[in-house]
């Protein structure tokens, strides 16, 4: 049950946490932030602080009177039961995917429908709103994701294994936040196959001609 990993070194930025608390992120980023927080109590606590600011903003907002009879209408709504909340799917204790991802995939890694994208790398695009895309990446041990730059922001959360790029090593629970200035070539650690969740709000720019041609198929 406890996914808490005490060795997480790479965390969310304050700006991303505040934007998540405020509800200002595209769905694919929300998913990635929620998945990281599921694995990281430090960021869960930081999120709590940013949500607390939201509470203070709400508390200090100038109230707008509710319509007449609104309390009665709300109580009636409660008595009717209203639309039932879909219960969260229980996550198996030995699963790799944290609960929010589990919900998007409809299970754990065994039900992911991988599509090969070349050089042994596989991906599965997750259904989110179109302002940003989220996909699971499967990188065989020792293999590389093509060298790429970014137009927007790219978040990469490690779920299993590890990858190394020009900046550092990223293990389970670690999140890398890449922006326009960064060109990098993540390489999966030799020890094990690496599975990541990657979200981006713009298409990636690959360096070589090969990957550029592949881009329409990759849908990234």
């Amino acid at each position, binding site marked *: 049950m406890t996914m808490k990993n005490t060795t997480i070194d790479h965390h969310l930025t304050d*700006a991303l946490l505040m934007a998540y608390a405020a509800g200002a992120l595209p769905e694919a980023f929300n998913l990635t932030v929620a998945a990281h927080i599921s694995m990281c109590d430090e960021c869960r606590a930081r999120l*709590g602080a940013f949500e607390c600011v939201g509470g203070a903003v709400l*508390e200090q907002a100038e109230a707008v009177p509710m319509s007449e009879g609104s309390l009665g209408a709300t109580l009636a709504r409660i008595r009717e039961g209203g639309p039932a909340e879909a219960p969260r799917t229980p996550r198996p204790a030995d699963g790799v995917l944290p609960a929010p991802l589990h919900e*998007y995939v409809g299970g754990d890694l065994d039900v992911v429908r991988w599509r090969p994208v070349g050089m042994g790398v596989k991906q599965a695009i997750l259904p989110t709103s179109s302002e940003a895309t989220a996909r699971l990446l499967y990188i065989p041990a020792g293999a590389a994701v093509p060298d790429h730059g970014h137009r927007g922001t790219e978040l990469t959360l490690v779920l299993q294994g590890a990858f190394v790029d020009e900046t550092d090593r990223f293990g389970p629970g670690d999140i890398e936040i890449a922006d326009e200035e960064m060109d990098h070539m993540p390489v999966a650690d030799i020890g094990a196959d690496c599975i990541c969740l990657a979200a981006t709000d713009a298409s990636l720019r690959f360096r070589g001609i090969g990957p550029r041609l592949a881009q329409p198929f990759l849908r990234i």
Partner: protein
Amino acid sequence: MATVECALSPPPGLHGKGAGREAVTCGATSDLMEKTENDDWVACMTAIRDAQDEAAFARLFGHFAPRVKAFLMRSGADATLAEECAQEAMATLWNKAHLFDPARASVATWVFTIARNRRIDALRRQKRPEPEDLPWGPEPERDQAEALALQQETDQLGVALAQLPEKQRDLIEKAYFGDLTHSEIAEQTGLPLGTIKSRIRLALDRLRHAMK
């Protein structure tokens, strides 16, 4: 794209922990009143959870529903939609009363998260992925003192927010009303968030320990 980083850097006199404490002392008089109010809201939540107490709900409704409505209108909803969403948000508060943990959030904070999710659902028509739930642990009422301390930190944060220079406060409000994108939101808020983070972290550590 214009960022608001400079404007959100801490104002003079609000650097570091000492300044945060100073801000709190200034608000000490109104603090006392707020504290009892917050405790009241927590008691109302417990009464709803344990006894489906409609009178307790009416009190929470009277205070929070008009604020949720205002929040939604500031976020771009018209009065009709805001009214509808505020009613739904308050119904959610009732239905999820068993998930409220006073050691990790004040009632205002919790209402805010419900209103925010309602806004994403109604205005952007999107799902909101949430982190994995953490249960309360084996002892729901595990530590009154812990909850009280959290409520106090929350009040102090409210005071600090009210005391920010207008321009800076305005930017924070804009962010929470959904008017800024994540790249327009800056790293610095000028608010003393370290203590409240540590408090929540402590509650999480105890919870993790209890779950083992």
